[in-house]
């Protein structure tokens, strides 16, 4: 286990945290705490995220040249992702959007001199041609999961685009798979919801609608 990973939500966001997050090394409580750190240090997080991926790109690309996403473009993209979430689960929509955006990244060219880059030799998290899309998709799902987690933690919606307020993620949050992408849910609440569906359906509409609706929708993440 990386000892640089945060133990409490108030630990500062570090590059180690971000790189572990970007490489998908975090899970469960560590993941939740890392997201919380990202939310707090919004700007720093974005800058670090960009440079992390830039470093990775340089190390993986041929020496002849490198394209990097225009920071302004990514900022606008970020804003679009964080714009009003009327529904708790938005991962599906975001993933589809990011495919369109990745095509836009190509024409934005800016050469980087590899000599200027310094940084540890990160193991190749991905070495296929779709890495760029994965970057965008990864960013999209990060933003989506962050927003979802925030909505679920019971606070009011974001005050303005791109500016996520302080949100303490409660303990006992689990990351569950759902058709909308990864979603943070309270494990106990999931059990109670299942119990309500199982026993609580005393309704004239239960057969067939209530039962079918619960059976179709029940996605409690239990595998």
């Amino acid at each position, binding site marked *: 286990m990386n000892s640089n990973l945060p133990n409490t939500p108030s630990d500062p966001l570090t590059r180690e945290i971000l790189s572990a997050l970007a490489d998908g090394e975090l899970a469960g409580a560590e993941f939740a705490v890392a997201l919380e750190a990202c939310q707090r240090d919004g700007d720093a997080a974005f800058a670090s995220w960009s440079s992390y991926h830039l470093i990775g790109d340089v190390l993986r690309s041929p020496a002849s040249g490198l394209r990097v996403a225009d920071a302004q473009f990514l900022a606008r993209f970020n804003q679009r992702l964080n714009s009003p979430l009327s529904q708790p689960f938005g991962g599906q929509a975001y993933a589809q959007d990011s495919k369109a955006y990745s095509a836009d990244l190509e024409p934005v060219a800016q050469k980087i001199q590899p000599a200027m880059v310094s940084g540890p030799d990160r193991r190749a998290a991905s070495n296929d041609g779709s890495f760029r899309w994965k970057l965008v998709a990864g960013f999209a799902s990060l933003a989506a999961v962050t927003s979802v987690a925030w909505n679920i*933690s019971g606070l009011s919606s974001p005050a303005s685009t791109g500016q996520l307020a302080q949100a303490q993620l409660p303990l006992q949050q689990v990351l569950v798979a759902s058709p909308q992408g990864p979603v943070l849910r309270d494990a106990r*609440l999931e059990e109670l919801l299942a*119990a309500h569906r*199982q026993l*609580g359906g005393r309704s004239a509409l239960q057969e*067939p609608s209530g039962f079918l609706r619960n059976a179709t929708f029940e996605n409690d993440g239990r595998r």
Partner: protein
Amino acid sequence: MNFVAAEALPAAAIPTAPAALALEATSINEWLMRMQEASRKRAYIGTYVVTFGGNMSSAKIWHVCEGDQQMERVETLTGAPRSIFRHNDRVVTFMPESKVVRSEKRESLGMFPDLLQSTDGRIADYYKLKPEGVDRVAGVAVNVVVLAPKDSMRFGYRVWTEQKQGLVVKLQTLDTDGKVLEQAAFSELQLDAPVRMDKLLHMMGKTDGYKLEQQPVLVKTTASAEGWVLKAPVAGFKPMSCYKRPAGASGSAAQDQPLQWIFSDGLASVSIFVEPLDRQRHDRESSMSMGATQTMSRQLGAYWLTVVGEVPMATLQLFASGLERKK
């Protein structure tokens, strides 16, 4: 019962008040009975889609009835693959990804006629049946009605039923502003499909290679026996049952398991869960909305309450604030 007569009722001459109410109760209950009978008796295969907010989940459904036996098979098409079989009140869920199978008995299924009897005219006291004309859904001609709540403590429903026999093909749950919270509908439907009960029963029993997940045997109790009372009853909602979970469901002791107290107004149900306060886990009061289902959690003295139901949040709050330890 001729559905057209029930539809024509509101336009007829107005009888005296008590008679009018009795007729109203009869018509709503009759409509519900007819809908129920059709849903049980008609064999069909269809694709069922549940939507709320930006989410969509769908499943393929098979349904058949033989005598007093009912069988359903649900294959989820979205998210985790699941095969759910229902035979009367027994439900078996196969989870192929984890090779786990769950078997449970669901009291709420198959209790409908009794439910109507126990609620008497209660559904008619709190909901009004309003016809809304005709339409076409999933290729079949349908009648549309709204079950409109008479107060703001419950949701409304818009129901599309197939004209010949009354099978529900589409159902919307409406919030207090009439906005659609959630919709469940067949996107395609094959009526009187050749579904074989024996084949489905055979599939339901094929648990080889699956690990049976033991369902905890729930202990039926009463809230009163457990020391709880709802000091201010919520209009229309009657307590239906109360369950205790035994020890060991997830490694914890019996007294840590939540007590579940279930209420219903005939169309909607609410579960109050009470468990001892655990400061580690219960650190924030919250509320959540998922389509028609609303939930809220909060502290009550040395306990933690979670209230779940297909009712407005304000109604959940009424339940939460009305719950009290017996003196």
